């Protein structure tokens, strides 16, 4: 009797713990939903939703492209040709990846502008703004590092011109350009560096920063106490 009573008690405790976890999870979801889909600031909300959708699109299409792409100067151009001509819907995936990168950059700037005009960066959301500006920098870096990867003449020239500009920025510019080039000059190592930055380093950094950005949003809510 006592043994079965203990078992029943343990079962009840386990069930309580499970339900408690689910309850907290539901509470979190409910809180997140009520913050993220606030009835205020509709424009900003839709821009934010589109940014997230485009970012996921970038991750998905980028992953698909990386299945066939070779980050090596000898075969990068041929592998891009192969994606366009031989991989089923490869041309479409590449095209969506390229266009959504441009749209993403435009929408991130638009989002930042709306936050600026509403002064939504003011206390207590200072660090949310700082993380947002970092995300803008990384979005630009995404776009810049991706342009070299097809290894065609236009991308090559645009990248060289961009690196020359970067080198002219004091303190950080030269170090950033050297890191991207993999040395003092643009060479065979550079494509590998660009690919690693574009496909490995930046995605993790951006996912982490988006998580911090959303966490801060949930913590402080939207400006105006409209939760």
């Amino acid at each position, binding site marked *: 009797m006592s043994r079965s009573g203990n078992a029943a008690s343990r079962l009840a405790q386990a069930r309580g713990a499970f339900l408690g976890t689910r*309850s907290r999870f*539901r*509470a*979190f*979801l*409910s*809180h997140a*939903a*009520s913050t993220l*889909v606030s*009835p205020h600031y509709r424009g900003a909300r*839709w821009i934010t*939703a*589109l940014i997230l*959708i*485009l970012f996921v*699109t970038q991750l998905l299409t980028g992953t698909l492209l990386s299945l066939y792409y070779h980050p090596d100067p000898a075969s990068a151009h041929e592998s891009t*040709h192969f994606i*366009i001509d031989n991989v089923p819907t490869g*041309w479409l995936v*590449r*095209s*969506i990846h*390229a*266009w959504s990168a441009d*749209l993403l950059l435009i929408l991130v700037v638009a989002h930042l*502008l709306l936050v*600026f*005009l509403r*002064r939504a*960066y*003011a*206390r207590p959301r*200072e660090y949310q*703004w*700082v993380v947002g*500006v970092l995300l803008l*920098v990384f979005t630009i870096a995404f*776009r*810049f590092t991706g342009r070299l990867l*097809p*290894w*065609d*003449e*236009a*991308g*090559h*020239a*645009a990248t*060289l*011109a*961009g690196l020359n*500009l970067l080198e*002219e*920025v*004091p*303190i*950080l510019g030269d170090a950033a350009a050297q890191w991207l080039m993999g040395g003092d000059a643009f060479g065979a190592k550079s494509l590998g560096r660009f690919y690693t930055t574009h496909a490995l380093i930046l995605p993790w950094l951006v996912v982490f920063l988006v998580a911090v950005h959303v966490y801060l949003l949930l913590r402080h809510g939207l400006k105006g106490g*409209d*939760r």
Partner: protein
Amino acid sequence: MIILLEPNVPAETHRKLVERVRSLDLDVVPLELGARRALEIVGSDPSRVLGLADADGVLEILTRRTPLVSGEPIWPHFTIRVLIATLLLIVLLALLTAFFPPGLGDRATATPPADAPSVEWYLRPLEVLLHKLPAAIGGWVVLLFWLGLFLLPFLDRADTSTARGQLQLLILRVVGLATLAAGILFALGVLS
């Protein structure tokens, strides 16, 4: 959010409602007040009212599985709107893809051809700043711009309750918008 309760809500129902809204971890303040008085408290922002609940409304809230936003359930109201926005985005991407597919030029050589395009559109404002201003100044202007952008919340200390603070904020916004407008014109190549 505020839940407004009609005065005739039974005590047991009221207790359950309070437990329920606390479990949802929402900023909900149940008010056992008449509707008119409660609306006076809410003031000019009726969107903060989650629901005007009588006894039947309370039961509905107690049994509801979907979170509410301004009295509207997430499903289907907001979900469908997000899906429509996604669909429009896909259509836009499909049109851009169909009419302006990104090309693939010849294989890159060690030295780019003379007629190769220069920097891409999003770097043109940077190019203009660096090349139109004297060499030593342009780079510092770019660096200070980004530093100012990062530190904006800590630099903007305007007190908008005073006329001086409002003027400061106005100037900041005008400068911000002018900078953006110039950046767009440079990016589009209208100015160079």
